[in-house]
């Protein structure tokens, strides 16, 4: 784990989902920042590179798949791990998410502890790309 707290960008249009996740991540020693739609997400990316992005699929404006693909297409952000969060619960969405370049896919409702483990695992993979 790096010396400074890893910055996690949480993108979700529902504040009631966003807020508990933000509090848990902070309590786990991360540095969470939030965005409620695609536009805000892009602004946060410009303000400072996050170490990982938690991205909701269904959002007004631009959906999570499209946003993920856009991030992975940008050379500056390509290396940032993206975990997609979806409430749609459809198996096809997992494939679609991975096709869009997502590093992991988690269905809502998730266990926050499990999500934290996945976040750590993704960060570790990102830190040692050869592994």
């Amino acid at each position, binding site marked *: 784990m790096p010396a400074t707290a890893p910055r996690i960008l949480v993108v979700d249009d*529902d504040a009631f989902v966003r*807020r*508990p996740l933000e509090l848990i991540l902070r309590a786990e020693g991360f540095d969470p920042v939030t965005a409620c739609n695609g536009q805000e997400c892009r602004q946060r990316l410009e303000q400072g590179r996050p170490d990982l992005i938690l991205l909701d699929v*269904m*959002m007004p404006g631009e959906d999570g798949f499209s946003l993920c693909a856009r991030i992975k297409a940008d050379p500056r952000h390509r290396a940032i791990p993206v975990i997609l969060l979806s*409430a749609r*619960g*459809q198996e096809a969405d997992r494939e679609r998410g991975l096709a869009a370049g997502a590093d992991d896919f988690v269905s809502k409702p998730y266990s926050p502890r499990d999500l934290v483990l996945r976040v750590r695992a993704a960060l570790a993979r990102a830190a040692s790309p050869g592994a």
Partner: protein
Amino acid sequence: MAQWSRGDRTLYAKLVYYGPALGGKTTNLVSLHRITDPQGTRKLLSLNTASDRTLFFDLLPFDLGTILGYRVALKLYTVPGQVRYEATRRVVLAGADAVVFVADSSRARRDDNRASLESLRANMRTNRLDPGRVPVIFQCNKQDLEDAASPQEVACWLGPEAEHAIAAVAVRDQGVLETFVAAVHAMLERLWALADARTRRAGALEALHARIEQVFAPHRERLGALRASPAAPAPPAASRQAMVFEGDDTLQQSLAAGVRLGSELAQVQEQARRLQREARALRRIHEALVRVGASFEREAVEQGALEALGSTVGAACGSLLCLLPEKPARFERGWRCHDDPLRARPEGLALLQRVAAGRRSAIVEDLAQALGEPVPPSGLRALLAVPVPAATGHWLLAYAPAPDGQFAEEDRAFAEVVAGQLAVGLEKVRLYEALARQRDALEQAVQQRTAQLRRAYAEQRELERIKDRFLANLSHEMRTPLTSITGAATYLQDYEAAPEQRQEMVAVILSAAQALERRLADLLRASTLGGEVSPTPAPCRLREVIEEACGLVGEGGISVSLFDPQALVTWDRSLIARALANLLDNARKFSPPNEPIEVRVVPAKLSGPGEVVPAVAISVLDRGPGVRPEDRERIFLPFEQGGDPLTGKPPGVGLGLHEARILARAHGGVLRYQERAGGGSEFQMLLPRTASCPSPEQAAAIAAHSAPAGA
């Protein structure tokens, strides 16, 4: 065979003198010649030898004068009596119209007479001379011999046919003319019967006989005169005054050899012709059987049978009839005719019924006679009728052409074979048709069932689709609040939280729980929507309905304009309020924040079936993104929602508009979407002021309630 030649109005007929050798056949002809032609204008052609009186034949042309408008030209022949000239006898006998059998009355020659009569019968058979058509006249010649048998005795030798044998002594001209006249009578009577109707119309049978007597009267007179004069009887040798070849044996032998060869040639030719005829008949039978056997179609089977029969037996036309007792005769099919020639005529039909009643094949030789009419039907002479086995009442009929067409036993036998084939063919057709009917019925049943299954499958698929849509919606609608609850509860359980964060998380849990509760209510409503909605309308103020709806969704951000705050309507208040609340809820989901939702209520007209009723139009307007044209009907379906499923899906399970429309319709109204001028959506509920489909009890209650208000 006799010919009625219309062209030269002449009846050509042939009379043959038959009998044992040296029985007096030629003597008969010579005597006849002497009696009837004393001047010798006609020639008697005779070939004589020393040992045999007649080697070849004698020929006496004889003109009977005019009878029934026809000149009757007779040819009189004798045959050689000797046993070895059988072939010659057969040839001479061919085509005879009558036969005179000259028996030798000498008792010593009894067996010769018998043998000769046997030979005559055999040769008639060979020549296809029907004893019923060709009369045989018997003469007992040489009654002047010492051992002469009486005519009765001769009849005993020869059988009952010879009963009326005419006694004769030909050398003395006795019995000769009588025999000849008797033969002419019998022959012409038969020929008259065989003639066509027009000929027969020329004179009755009695007139015919009278005419014959008249013709022979001068000859009888002359004969009387000859007998009266003692010098008259001439010796037989002297009587041979016609052209007679005598004595030259070489000539006789050459002639005999020539005759024999000619006779054999004729025989061979006849045989060849017969074989050709038989081959043709067999080919036709074969073709007919192939046609009848190869087809599954009634028409081809029936036509094939008729054609095979008609062409083989030489018919003019033929038909297939259904002849059942007590029923009209039904014409099934014709060959060379468009209807059965007898069926249409009462007497004809009666004849057919008589034949059918016999239940066996039959030949009617003379249709005119059978019908009791002078005119046979349309140039037809004989009928051949055979029942078709196993096809009840069906008869194959063939008609022989006039004037002298006829059917023989072979024709009948062949017709029965054809009828048998036809029966097999018809049974095959019947089975095939039954099979085809069953197959068609089965095919139809399969098609119907397939269509039913296809519809059921489509309905099933639609239901599946609705279920999937519902589950997907519901899944999302419940997963999101569950995520909030899990997240908040986990945080509270696992981490040290400041009091204000603790408060915040509890609020998140409560809010999410409320959302879940709403979804549960949606679910319950969805489960009741399948059934009938039966409103209970009651008079109420329009304003109260609007207020109740706003109360259901929360007052904020709704501006109402109502044309008459006191307006009364007769609706099921709570149902219309729910429908309106659904519209408001929907508008709020899509409307941008800070844009108020408008409710406009105006009076309107609603065209019902046959009448226009006063109505109220309630419009809910928003400034949201509007509904894409392709979605404008879809959004009213259950569990369908507008917007992109990923980015534009509103909250809820997609029942609001569906339910609102059902409720509006239950009141006799409509719910429709239109674009709002300046952007956004307008959902308009058009409801009759009085719900148009209340039950009778409700209608009575409304009337009772309204009466005091009106007073």
